[in-house]
């Protein structure tokens, strides 16, 4: 039963997010607002509700399953983007490799080295 109680909590925060999005014209998905509200609520309470933790683990593990139905459709609408494929594939693969490279370089530059790696700490300078 505690799983269902946790699920109810998630739904309540989702509805709260939806309410705030509608009331204040926030340009963000209601799930994200619900997520931020729940994080704030945990912070306010100083801990997490055990029911929510119990339901969140299976739900997060299901994320990959939940987006699969969306992926299926691409095989059926592929010809709609027939003349765009070169641009799409190049943008995705080259763009992702470039962004991985730049985030690795950025992080290496600014993240203080952890003690166990034993490397000297880089001094952080603003450019």
């Amino acid at each position: 039963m505690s799983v269902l109680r946790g699920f109810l909590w998630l739904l309540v925060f989702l509805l709260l997010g939806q309410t705030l999005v509608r009331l204040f014209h926030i340009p963000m998905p209601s799930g994200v607002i619900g997520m931020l509200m729940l994080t704030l609520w945990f912070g306010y309470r100083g801990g997490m509700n055990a029911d929510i933790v119990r339901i969140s683990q299976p739900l997060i593990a299901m994320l990959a399953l939940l987006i699969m139905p969306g992926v299926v459709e691409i095989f059926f609408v592929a010809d709609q983007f027939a003349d765009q494929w070169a641009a799409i594939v190049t943008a995705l693969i080259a763009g992702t490799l470039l962004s991985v490279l730049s985030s690795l370089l950025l992080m290496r530059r600014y993240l203080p080295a952890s003690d166990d790696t034993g490397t000297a700490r880089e001094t952080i300078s603003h450019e």
Partner: protein
Amino acid sequence: MNDWFGRLSQLPQQWFESPIAAIALTLGAYFIGTRLFKLMRRPNWCPPMLIAAIMIAVVIALLPVGVEDYNRGARWLMMLLGPATVALAVPLYQQLPQIRALWKPILMTLPLSATLAACYAVIIAAVMGAPEEVLASLAPKSVTSPIALSLAEELGGSRALLMGAVLTTGVTAIFGVEWLSRVLKIRDPRLIGLALGINGHALGTVRAFEINSVAGAFASLGMSLTGAFTAVALPLVWHLFY
């Protein structure tokens, strides 16, 4: 006998009248996909989700039902994306002490990395002449899918194309992080985790948890923060241009 065949041929249509067949097909494909993935020794260029999606597509193509019939049923499953997004508050809250300890370097690097992740793809596609609808479907590609889906709706992109983009990005990011961190001699699990989470969303995070728990924690941190940041920033920036 003819009568019987008639009833048999109508059966697939009738299955897909209620969402049950679509949900069963999705779950079945998911488990077979995971099994095949293990049998193929976990190739990182082909996640279980891709195997499963191809299997579902083949089944739909073979049966006399359309992808719309499947989508109508699968929508019930995708409705869980909302509560699943809210559930991401749990890993986010668990990592608050980590965020507090490292807030300065993370604040300096993460928004920039998340912005670059969207910009590179949009700029490359725009230069190659892709129309606005395609650009809107590519921009949220590095964001975890529940957030990306609502973003694509907000920007007016194609849902199907976005999901394909999210999947391709995840696979490329896993490959890229493993390859480039070897080239750059980066071994810090926090760094590898952050790079996987920022660029490779949920797929990268799952991979990071396979490396070790530190990488996994930082990957979910990178994923949640990239999602939250992009969800706020992208619509605002987008509406400046379009």
